C-alpha cells in the first residue's frame, strides 16, 4: 500500500530544517512510517545543508544509500533535521539556522550533533530518525532527550551519501523511542554497499531478545570517575543493578588508553574535516562566489562567509596538524592511540560480553551553558572511545537525574550490534 502520509508538524523545538509536506511512502517493513533524516545525509531533490550557510540551497541529485534502502522499505522521508554545523558540536547550538530545543526541557539543549533527529523523535513528531555518530552524535542527544540511539559497528551501515566530517570514525545510525524501533530501522539500513568500500557484508536481521542470563558486563572505572556527575553515575549504577537482577554478571575493568582518547579523537576528526570540507568553494554548488574576483580571492570570500566559527576552528586545527613536519606528531600518533584503545577493548572483551556505563557524564546542558570549546569537547569523553575502536554502542534511557533524562550506554564487540541491542531491550522491558 503506497501513498502519502500527512505531515505538518508544529516544530516548536526547531528540530527540522526542512519538512516534507505529505511525503510519499511505499510498501515494506517501514510502510507509512515517518522517518526524519539528519541534514548531513544526502536526499535527492530535498535540500541538504549540514546546517551550514555554505550549503544553503544545495539540493543533491542523488540519494544516500541508506535513503534508497528506507524508500525501498516503504518509509516516508518526513524531513531534514537540525544539527551542529557539519556535525561539529554536542548541543546543536552550532547550527547556522538556530539551535534545537530539548523537548524534555526547552531551556536545555537536545545534545548533538544529531539534536534535531533526537528532538523530533522525543517530541513525537516522527516515530524514528536517522542520525550520524562521529564521537557520540547519536548517543549524546538520545541520552539528553530520553530516547534510544544506536551507533552501529564501523562498516555495518553504508556511509555513501553521508556528507563526511570524519570518515574513519562516523556511522549513520537509528534513533527511536523504543529499542524495537531502533532495531527495525537498523535492519533497514545495514549491509554492504559497493559504493562504500569500507562497508561490510554484515546485514542486520535481528529481533531483540530480552534474555541476558549469564551475560558478562564489564564496568570500566573510568566511566564512573572524575568528571562524571555523581547523580548521573548513581542512576546508571542502579540501571546496571537491574541488569544483574536479570541474570547478568558484572566484572570491573579499566580502559587506561582513555587518557589519550579525546586527543586522538580531536586530532583525527579535525585532520579529516580539514580535507573533507575543502571542497566547499562555491564553484559547483552552494552560494556562488563573485566571479569578477580571482579564484583564490573568491574561495577565501565564500569560505569565510559560509562556515561558522566552530567549523573554521576545526578546519584550522586540522590544517595545522597535517602540515609538513607535523603529520607524525599528530595524525600518525592519533592512529597509534586508536590502536591502543582498540587493544584495551579487545582485552576487556576477552572477559566480558559487553561494557556498560553512562552515555554522557552529565544531563542536558542549559542553552549557551557550554560557551568555551574545550569544556564542550570534554563532554564527549564517554562516547568517543567506541568510535575510536569502531565498536557498536547504544544509549537507552535509564531514569532521570536533576529531573532530566540519563542514558545507559552499552558497548559491544565489533559487529555484535545485536548483542548491545538485546541488553538495551532487556533493560527497557524490565523497567516498562
Amino acid at each position, binding site marked *: 500500500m503506497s501513498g502519502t502520509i500527512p505531515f505538518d508538524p508544529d516544530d516548536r523545538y526547531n528540530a527540522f530544517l526542512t519538512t516534507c509536506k505529505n511525503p510519499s511512502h511505499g510498501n515494506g517493513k517501514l510502510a507509512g512510517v515517518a522517518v526524519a533524516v539528519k541534514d548531513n545525509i544526502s536526499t535527492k531533490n530535498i535540500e541538504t545543508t549540514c546546517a551550514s550557510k555554505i550549503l544553503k540551497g544545495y539540493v543533491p541529485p542523488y540519494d544516500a544509500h541508506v535513503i534508497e534502502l528506507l524508500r525501498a522499505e516503504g518509509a516516508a522521508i518526513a524531513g531534514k533535521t537540525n544539527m551542529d554545523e557539519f556535525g561539529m558540536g554536542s548541543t546543536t547550538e552550532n547550527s547556522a539556522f538556530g539551535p534545537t530545543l530539548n523537548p524534555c526541557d526547552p531551556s536545555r539543549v537536545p545534545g548533538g550533533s544529531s539534536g534535531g533527529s533526537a528532538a523530533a523523535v522525543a517530541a513525537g513528531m516522527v516515530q524514528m530518525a536517522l542520525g550520524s555518530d562521529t564521537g557520540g552524535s547519536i548517543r549524546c542527544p538520545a541520552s539528553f532527550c530520553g530516547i534510544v540511539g544506536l551507533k552501529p559497528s564501523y562498516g555495518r551501515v553504508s556511509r555513501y551519501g553521508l556528507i563526511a566530517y570524519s570518515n*574513519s570514525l562516523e556511522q549513520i545510525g537509528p534513533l527511536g523511542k523504543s529499542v524495537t524501533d531502533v532495531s527495525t530501522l537498523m535492519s533497514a539500513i545495514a549491509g554492504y554497499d559497493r559504493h562504500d568500500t569500507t562497508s561490510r557484508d554484515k546485514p542486520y536481521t535481528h529481533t531483540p531478545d530480552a534474555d541476558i542470563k549469564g551475560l558478562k558486563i564489564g564496568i570500566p572505572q573510568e566511566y564512573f570517575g572524575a568528571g562524571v556527575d555523581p547523580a548521573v553515575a548513581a542512576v546508571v549504577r542502579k540501571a546496571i543493578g537491574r541488569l544483574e537482577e536479570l541474570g547478568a554478571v558484572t566484572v570491573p575493568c579499566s580502559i587506561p588508553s582513555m587518557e589519550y582518547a579525546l586527543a586522538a579523537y580531536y586530532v583525527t576528526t579535525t585532520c579529516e574535516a580539514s580535507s573533507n570540507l575543502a571542497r566547499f568553494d562555491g564553484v559547483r554548488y552552494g552560494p556562488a562566489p563573485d566571479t569578477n574576483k580571482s579564484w583564490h580571492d573568491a574561495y577565501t570570500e565564500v569560505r569565510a562567509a559560509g562556515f561558522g566559527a566552530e567549523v573554521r576552528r576545526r578546519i584550522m586545527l586540522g590544517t595545522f596538524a*597535517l602540515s*609538513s613536519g607535523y603529520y607524525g606528531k599528530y595524525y600518525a600518533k592519533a592512529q597509534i592511540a586508536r590502536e591502543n584503545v582498540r587493544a584495551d577493548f579487545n582485552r576487556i572483551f576477552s572477559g566480558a560480553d559487553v561494557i556498560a556505563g553512562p552515555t554522557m557524564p552529565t544531563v542536558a546542558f542549559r542553552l549557551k551553558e557550554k560557551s568555551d570549546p574545550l569544556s564542550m569537547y570534554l563532554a564527549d569523553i564517554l562516547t568517543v572511545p567506541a568510535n575510536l575502536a569502531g565498536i557498536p554502542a547504544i544509549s537507552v534511557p535509564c531514569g532521570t537525574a536533576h529531573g532530566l533524562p540519563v542514558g545507559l550506554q552499552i558497548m559491544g564487540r565489533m559487529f555484535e550490534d545485536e548483542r548491545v541491542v538485546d541488553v538495551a531491550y532487556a533493560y527497557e522491558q524490565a523497567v516498562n
Partner: protein
Amino acid sequence: MADEETQVIVGLEVHCQLDTKSKLFCGCSTDYRVDGPNTHVCPICLGLPGAMPALNKRAIEYAMKVAKALNCEILNESEFSRKNYFYPDLDKAYQITQYDKPLAEGGYLEIESDEGGEKKVRLTRIHVEEDPGRLVHMGNVERGKYSLVDYNRAGIPLIEIVSEPDMRSPKEARKFLNKLRATLEYLSVFDSEKEGSLRVDANISIKGNERVEVKNITSYKGVEKALTFEMTRQKNLIRRGQKIARETRHYLEARGVTQSARSKEQEHDYRYFPEPDLRPLRVKSWLDGIDLPELPDARRERFMKEYGCSLSHARTLTGDLRLANFFESVVAPDKAGLSPLAATWIADTLIGELNYRDMSLDRFEPAAMTGLILLLKAETITDKSGVEVLRVMLDERLKNEPAETPDAIVKRLNLAKTAGDTGAITTAIEEAINENPKALADYRNGGSKALNFLVGQVMKKTRGKADPGELNRLLIEALKKREV
C-alpha cells in the same frame, strides 16, 4: 674533461592515462573527448558532498601489468592518500593519489643509449592516481578573462612512473619516453593517440649543480625540446659563473622555452594523509594471474630472426605497436619474399612520408603497402616511381579521396618501367645528348659529373620509368658511338 664537467642528468616523472572503460573511482565512461564538457560526470567524480570513491579493479590490474613489464616490485600493502590543494579543476580540493605506499617500487626500462647499445634506466616507483578536471581559459585581455571548468577528465585513472636520474641527455629522455610508450601500448593499457594521454615532468641538472623541475610537457617531441632548451640555459648560466636556482619551471610548448613558475606555486604543502574512504590495497597475489604479451625488446629480436631485419630497422619497426603490426600484416602474404623490401620501405620511406603529412598510420591499410612492395619486388616500377605511388596513396587517404590500388596508380600515371622498350630510352638519350653539347664535351674530357647530369636528363624525359641499370648501359653505349 669538458664533457665530464657539464654532464647532464635527467630524471622523468611520466603521467599516463590508463585506457580503462570507466574512471578510477566511479562508473563514468573514460571516452570523454568526443562529447561536450561536463557530460561524463556523476556525484563521485564531481566530488559532490557525501559521494565516496570505489576503486576500479581493472585500473589496478592495468597498473600491475605495467609494473610487471617494467620489472617492478609490487608492495605487499599499498594505500591511497589525499593530496590536498585548492584549484578550480580539483573538485574535492584533494587528489586521491598514492604517497608513501605506492603500488610498486624499483624496476627498470632498457633504452638505446647515446653511446649505442642498451642501457638500463632505473625506476623509483609506479603509483596510481586520479586525473583532475580541466580548465578552459576564455576571453582575452581586452574583453575580460575567465575560465570554464570541465570535469569530464576528473577521475580518469593515471599511473605516474618515476625514474631515477639515469638519463644523460635530452635525447635519451626522448628515447625513454618512446620506449615507455611502446611498452604501454604493447600492454594494451594506454592509447598514445588520445590527446593529453601522457604528461611529463622532468628533473634536469648539470652535474654538481641544483636541479630544476620542468613541468607541463605534453608531447613526446616536447620532452627533448624542453630539456634541450633547459640544458642550454643552465650551461650558459654556469659558463657565466652564475648559480642555478633550484626551482620549478613551466614549459611553454608554443615558444619552446621554459619559464620560472611563480614562487607561490612552489610553496605547496599538500598535507598528505591516508584516504580514509578506501581500504589498503593488498594485491600482490594478483600478479600470478597477469600474463604479459610479447614486449618491444622480444619483438625486436624476433623481427631480426624471423624477418632478417637489421637491428636498426627492427628497432624502428618494433618501437611502435601500430608500426610493428603494420609491418607484419604487410609481409604476411610472403614473409621471406617481402620482408627485406618491406622493412626498408616502411622503416625508411613510409615513416618519413607519414611524418611529413603529420598523418596517422591508422589511415593507411597494410594491403595497399603490400601491393606496392609486390610491384617493387617484381621490378615493375623503379624505386623512384615507388615513392611516387606511395605519395599518391597517402594523399588520397589524407584527402578522403577514393583510394586507388597501386596497380591502378601505376597505370594511370604510366609509371611502369620501360623495360624491353629500349626505343623510348634511346630516343630520350639521343635528345638529351643533342640538347646538351657541353655535357658531351665534358664527358669526353673525362667528366663523370657530366654522365650523371645526362642520366638525370634522360630520367626527366622518361619520367623516372627507365630502369637505372639499363639507362646507364644504353647511355654509355650512345656516348661511345659519338666518339667514333
